[in-house]
């Protein structure tokens, strides 16, 4: 399973996403990291180019709802059905909103690495 971890928007906090990249790699997943400050369009393009199975968006600046909405639009415009999830500084009350926007999963602040890795393992079983 191949995962794209991406940093949309202008937020430069990348400690968490890199920690997760290391953890997923150690758990046997293939990980592609986008680098900082990508637009949603660039991220989707990168997902296609790398033929990934799922896209993760790391957002700590509070712009997660705006960016999730954009993600939904871009995937719709391009008629793509790549599952995506959100992590970072996400208030618990926004998790439902993100799921409604189309996120497959949203990890609120305080989520443990183990939880995230388990989530991917459960997807792997399904796949």
């Amino acid at each position, binding site marked *: 399973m191949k995962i794209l971890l991406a940093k949309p928007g202008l937020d430069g906090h990348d400690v968490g996403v890199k920690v997760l990249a*290391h953890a997923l790699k150690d758990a046997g997943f293939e990980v592609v990291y986008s680098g*900082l400050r990508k637009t949603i369009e660039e991220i989707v393009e990168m997902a296609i180019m790398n033929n990934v199975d799922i896209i993760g968006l790391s957002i700590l*600046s*509070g712009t997660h709802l*705006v960016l999730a909405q954009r993600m939904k639009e871009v995937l719709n415009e391009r008629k793509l059905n790549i599952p995506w999830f959100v992590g970072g500084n*996400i*208030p618990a*009350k926004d998790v439902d909103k993100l799921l409604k926007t189309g996120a497959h999963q949203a990890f*609120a602040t305080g989520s443990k690495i183990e939880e995230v890795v388990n989530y991917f393992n459960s997807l792997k079983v399904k796949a």
Partner: protein
Amino acid sequence: MSTTKIKKTAEDFGVKKVFLESGLEVDPLYTAKDIENSDKYEMPGEYPFTRGIHPTMYRNKPFTIRQYAGFASPEETNERFHFLIKNGQSGLNVAFDLPTQCGLDSDDPRAFGEVGRVGMSIDTLHDFEIAFKNIDLDKITVSLTINGTAIILIAMYIAMAEKAGYDISKLRGTAQNDILKEFIGRGTWIFPVDRSVKLVVDTIEYCAHHVPKYSPVSVCGYHIRESGANPIQEMAYAFCIAKAYTDGALSRGISIDDFASRLSFNFDIYGNLFEQIAKFRGGRRLWAKIIREEYGAKKDSSCWLRMIAGGGGGGLTKEQPENNIVRSAYYALISALSGTQTMALCSYDEAYTIPTEHSAEISLRTMQIMIHEMGICDTVDPLGGSYYVEALTDRFEEEIKKEMKTVEKWNGIVNAVATGKIQESVSKQAYEREMGIQSGNIPKVGVNIFKTDEETKDVEFHPYNQHAADTQVEKLRKIKSSRNNEKVKTCLEQIKIDAKADKNLMPSIISAVKEYCTVGEIVNTLKEVYGEFKEPIFFDNA
């Protein structure tokens, strides 16, 4: 002295081994023997300044308390300045929003949702003129927390002062302007690494000649540590960065004694108390030696490691947040025992919410209690002479030096950053540390030990002010239609010519901002010549 071996190590005593975060093992006992080779007669205020940069440090004047604050618009910032001056304060840190930090104008599509979110939004000199309206720049010192676009914002500050009739040779102020650490942590880089350093050196050169009282650079170990570096690496990388800027300044013909005393540092505090204190004492001694022995500085003040050192957000927890008040008090104590010049603490609730006035007040009171009730300012370097602290100080000096050699092996800091070498090693360490906390190997009270059933606290953000963002975009539209666009074109062309000729860009950028060229226009002009930094990605699956 007796010839029988004294018990000293963990093995000798049959107790468990202890390692610091930096990887150094510490013994259960230190004695006079451990500091036999140390200088027992070194005085504070004397080279190499292990014990502090002044003879009595805080007795006459305690360290400066400087708390951070961000305000969305130039208008609000102006109000805040007036409030501070009325209340007898003389300094303010100015924070900028992400578009300003990344070189995007408010009307750029990539800025959508970010205008004014984390600080003041600046498009043109007009915004600076609003922010500083009716402010006496002789009476207030302004600290600009800006890096990627620092050359433009420093130019705006100078241009504003010049237009208002100030003598810029007396203008004071500081800018963070440490681009090398942005590549390691924080991430507001724009141009390739060597071009980015060139721009920092341009500001240093220009200020040395025209604005000599301005401090153009504050080197930040802080963000490097928050990205996963250990305390030894924090100091070593910061010193390598400071040396890169120093070398650049010297290559422009500036003398070390004209530059070094304008340089300051920003460091992080969390974790083991003695490790941090040794880091600062050993680091201060090493920096003094570098400046005198390697660079040949004559003035003592050139050798001073001047620093702001406060509580690091990295040590605070969302769990049992009131514990952060206690942690911050220890961090403040560490900072004072290490001889800091300036202190700032995080609010205890910052990990999950917008700090309230109450939590900000607790941070302030924490420092004030220490100053006024604990006797912390009475006697200089109170830990000087402690067998443990002195031995660890010596060890840190040595280890920081060793780590700096490692950077040299990577062909220097600019190359180590450009290739992602440092980013890779600190991110790996951040991962190991996080796994250590999550597995319980690194104890963290309230997180993996002494946990209580508590209601999970939700994170909270400032509500985004779309109206303020729209106003900013509208203001920009008006400026663009009312300025002299012919002159704007000529100014941007001049920047391009100077960039291609590798000239100092401060003069052409100052001219450009005076004609209300925008931050985005100047950045885009420079991108045409310099290109952009290509972030090295190191999670390959090969």
